[in-house]
């Protein structure tokens, strides 16, 4: 694991800039705008959802395959809270197993055109090679003897631009502050809502850049991890491109039907790793969500 002190400094600077920006923005607000913001931020809202779905979520790693029925079953509990600018929310896997992806943050600015949040979340979940081997019927030689890869928890600034039924958001995140995975990433995502009768249909396009530290941590092979089936591997930064379509339909005042498909494309720096089997992956789900 590589912790870069320079990145930590950069991240702290980003955090400082965010707080200063927030303070300056607040000071410059007219009383009218301030009043409007206060009214909005006074709101306390929460929402809880539980969901069950059938999920097709294959692994990127060699030798790791869905085998049991439980591999295709996703259960989730989602709890979103918003109070005076502070929020806890889950943007990912809302309709499937929500094991990670919850975001904890503060809304620095939000108006009709754009928003700025500071938040922390796990950008990449941890994985344990020994657990993966244990769960599979067949051996996975490329995973033998590897240590656990910790999750990349990042501290980020999120800029969002709001269009007509659309959102473009860009996360500038450092994973070196609140996790042992040094590095940084830029995650951009554009989603467009196209309502059709009672359906909400979302089209999404995402592009994420991971720094070399993050890529190395997850799929790199250090000199002391080399084996006959696993050559040393160090990557520079890598990209992940995503295209997704998902749809929601209200079945009753408490139940919705959720379905979607996402196509992931990984850049060469990821697929060249001895651990990785796929250059692209398709994920899909269909399920029901109960909204409290």
């Amino acid at each position, binding site marked *: 694991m590589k912790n870069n002190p320079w990145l930590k400094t950069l991240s702290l600077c980003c955090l400082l800039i965010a707080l200063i920006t927030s303070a300056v923005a607040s000071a410059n607000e007219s009383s009218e705008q301030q009043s409007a913001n206060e009214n909005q931020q006074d709101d306390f809202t929460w*929402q809880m959802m539980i969901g069950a779905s059938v999920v097709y979520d294959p692994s990127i790693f060699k030798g790791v395959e869905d085998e049991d029925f439980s591999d295709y079953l996703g259960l989730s509990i989602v709890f979103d809270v918003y109070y005076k600018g502070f929020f806890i929310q889950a943007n990912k896997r809302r309709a499937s197993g929500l094991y990670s992806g919850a975001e904890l943050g503060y809304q620095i600015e*939000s108006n009709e055109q754009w928003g700025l949040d500071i938040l922390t979340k796990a950008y990449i979940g941890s994985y344990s090679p020994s657990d993966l081997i244990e769960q599979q019927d067949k051996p996975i030689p490329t995973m033998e003897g590897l240590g656990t890869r910790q999750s990349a928890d990042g501290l980020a600034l999120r800029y969002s631009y709001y269009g007509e039924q659309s959102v473009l958001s860009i996360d500038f995140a450092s994973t070196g502050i609140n996790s042992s995975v040094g590095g940084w990433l830029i995650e951009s*995502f554009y989603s467009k809502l196209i309502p059709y009768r009672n359906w909400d249909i979302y089209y999404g396009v995402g592009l994420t850049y991971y720094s070399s530290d993050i890529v190395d941590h997850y799929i790199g092979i250090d000199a002391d991890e080399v084996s006959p089936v696993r050559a040393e591997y160090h990557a520079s930064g890598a990209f992940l491109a995503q295209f997704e379509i*998902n749809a929601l339909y209200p079945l009753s005042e408490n139940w*919705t039907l959720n379905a*979607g*498909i996402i196509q992931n494309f990984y850049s060469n720096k990821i697929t060249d790793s001895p651990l990785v089997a796929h250059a692209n992956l398709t994920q899909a789900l269909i399920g029901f969500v109960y909204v409290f």
Partner: protein
Amino acid sequence: MYFKHYLYFIAVTLSILSQTSRANNIDDNQTFDTAIQFNAQPANCVALTQGRKCFARIKFYWKVEQADNICLVRKDNNYLIQCWKNINEVSTSIEFESDKKVVYQLIQQQTRQAIAETTVNVSWVHKSTPRKRRWRLF
């Protein structure tokens, strides 16, 4: 021939609309003959988010004791949906599209009175919130 029908339709429409408009202003809590059956299915349309239009195919059923000339009218805008002549039982359906509840009335053509009404409510799953956010699947 067609012109006569057209004039008849206009006259009936205008008279019903003026009557229902007046009725709306005078008495919103009017009572109706319970012997008349009039219902809409589904009686509730569910949208995903508060404030969004809800869409549904609504089936109306009405039955009166004696055959009569009766019109189906949307109460809030006095829109005449359809009229029937000398009939006592009807089943029909319409495309519903609204972000709030809609009351439908049966109007007797001769007396120009509302003889029954039924409501299609609009509800939602998610409450409207000013907070904007992105939505991702995975």
